[in-house]
């Protein structure tokens, strides 16, 4: 644990600035956000389609607070606390109604609430700042507390260290939560809400309190993003932002704390890393999502725990061939549609100019189908439960 923390703290020494640092900062923020989602989905069994609501609340809360009180010395270091309070408040108010039921009812109401906020945003420019969002400034102003700590947040490194500190603190707090009575009740409500109620725990109260906690940490993540970008936009409330923690949590393994972190890293690598390679990255992320759902419903964490049977080298080669075929076809399709310039990935494969060639298409499709067929033949089946190591 400590080693990981130190290694992360030393990250900026290796990557002083630029893209690697931005990506790392983004990833840490997403980890907090996905972990807050894990509190709801993995721990309490509440599937939410509108988690961006609390992220957005934290982001706008932080931006407005910094604009209003920044000149009076509001410390940026503690700003995520305010963002968390905003997220918790927004979670608490409609949450009491929403927490009455779990399952589909909760999922649908969470979707509705987020859509409501998204629809309200253009109508309230003073609150949401229209398309430009609410801009803010983390550097100027009397920051006696920050200065006393010896930081001014002028560099990306300092922002990274701030985000890292808040990520470690939040992740630690959320990990500890499973040992608390409320954390215990959340698991009970997740597994069997009715049984929990017959033992004396009110599922509604448990759901509501967990929702507020999840809202708090989502708000912290929102505030961290505001500090990083010095702006809060409506995108923070948007559908992509709501889908991100769901996709990341499912890829990583919904019931696993470590899985949530792994899912966040994979998601950010796909979104941040792959977006510079190809504009079709959401498609590839979608493919990964479907693949995980099909082969490993318990996510990366499930793969890790159950230790899938060792696959032959043929399987791996076949998978690579199939993946190569898929990429070829997708990039060809992208070129064919004629939207914008050729991606880096397409140039690596030498595809630009061949989008009208039947040969290129045929080769791509053949590799995809052939690779998939070979993969199907070579793959070893999952072991049954009885064969798993105890």
């Amino acid at each position, binding site marked *: 644990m400590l080693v990981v923390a130190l290694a992360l703290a030393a990250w900026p020494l290796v990557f002083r600035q630029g893209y690697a640092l931005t990506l790392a900062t983004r990833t840490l923020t997403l980890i907090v956000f996905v972990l807050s989602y894990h509190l709801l989905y993995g721990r309490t069994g509440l599937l939410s389609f509108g988690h961006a609501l609390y992220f957005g609340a934290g982001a706008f809360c932080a931006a407005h607070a910094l604009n209003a009180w920044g000149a009076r010395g509001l410390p940026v270091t503690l700003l995520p606390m305010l963002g968390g309070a905003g997220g918790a408040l927004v979670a608490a108010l409609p949450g009491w109604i929403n927490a009455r039921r779990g399952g589909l009812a909760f999922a649908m109401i969470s979707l509705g609430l987020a859509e409501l906020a998204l629809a309200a945003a253009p109508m309230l420019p003073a609150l949401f700042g229209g398309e430009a969002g609410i801009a803010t400034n983390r550097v100027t102003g009397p920051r006696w507390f920050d200065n006393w700590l010896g930081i001014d947040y002028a560099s990306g490194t300092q922002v990274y260290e701030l985000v890292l500190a808040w990520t470690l603190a939040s992740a630690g707090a959320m990990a500890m*939560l499973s040992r*608390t*009575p*409320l954390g*215990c*009740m959340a*698991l*009970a409500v*997740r*597994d*069997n809400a*009715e*049984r*929990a*109620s*017959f*033992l*004396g*725990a*009110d*599922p509604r*109260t*448990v759901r509501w*309190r967990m929702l507020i906690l999840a809202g708090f940490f989502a708000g912290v993540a929102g505030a961290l993003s505001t500090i990083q970008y010095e702006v809060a936009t409506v995108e923070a409330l948007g559908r992509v932002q709501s889908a991100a923690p769901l996709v990341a949590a499912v890829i990583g393994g919904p*019931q696993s704390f470590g899985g949530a972190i792994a899912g966040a890293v994979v998601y950010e690598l796909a979104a941040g890393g792959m977006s510079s390679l190809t504009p079709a990255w959401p498609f590839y992320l979608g493919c990964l999502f479907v693949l995980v759902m099909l082969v490993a419903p318990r996510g990366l964490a499930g793969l890790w725990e159950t230790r899938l049977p060792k696959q032959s080298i043929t399987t791996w080669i076949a998978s690579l061939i199939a993946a190569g075929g898929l990429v070829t076809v997708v990039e060809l399709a992208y070129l064919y549609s004629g939207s914008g310039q050729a991606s880096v990935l397409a140039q690596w494969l030498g595809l630009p100019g061949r989008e009208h060639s039947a040969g290129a298409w045929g080769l791509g499709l053949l590799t995809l189908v052939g690779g998939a067929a070979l993969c199907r033949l070579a793959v070893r089946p999952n072991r049954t439960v009885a064969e798993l190591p105890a």
Partner: protein
Amino acid sequence: MSTGRQTQQNRCGVAGVSALMFRGVHKRFGALEVLRGLDLDIAPRERHALIGPNGAGKSTLFDIATGRIPPTSGEVVLNGRKLHGLAPHERARLGLARSFQITSLFRDLCVFENLRCAVMAGRDERYRLWVGADVSRAVQERADEVLSLVGLEARRSEPVSMLSYAEQRALELGVTIAGGAGVLLLDEPTAGMSRPEARAAVELIRRVSEGRSLFIIEHDMDVVFGLADRVSVLAGGELIASGTPEAIRADAAVRAAYLGTAVGQ
């Protein structure tokens, strides 16, 4: 209501309050009348069995007692306190615990965690984010105590799905009693068990219900007559008899309505 209390006192011959009391409990599902004005008293520390043919309304009576469904009319009273309008978790906190006919556990948790959750749910600290070491130790100890009481020490960290059926039923019982409720409602605890398993289960129930009031639905006549101080017979939504096991065994109406040849064996 006061006349009801009067009757009950006269019948029991003691001035104490019934552990659980049903007064004029009626339940109608649409046109179907499941319970037709039922009066029943469970005395403190009594082991009371409820028998009756399938569809007699036994589980419905449990559902009404624990607040899962409301009665169409009538009243349920726990230790002298009317339960009308209280949610299941509020009734549980007053000391009313129930087990389920179809095993109802926390499926993704291990055996010990099931018991720990059950103990914690019964305590006032249940929603806290911080508790002292003394509380968590007390919870831990109580969970371990119940664990050994139901004889599952060897399966402590096993996930529920790895337990045998009889072990799951034992854990169901453990989860029910973990909170220390004074009134236990057990819904067919031995259903689906083999003879030896059922015998072991009866011993277990006898042990865990020591000093508490037990209200048990059971089909197995060996279990009923081996365990109960009193037996009530529910048929067609009405109590047709209530008395000692011997009296019930001898009751002609009961034999005609339900027991058939089972008692003669």
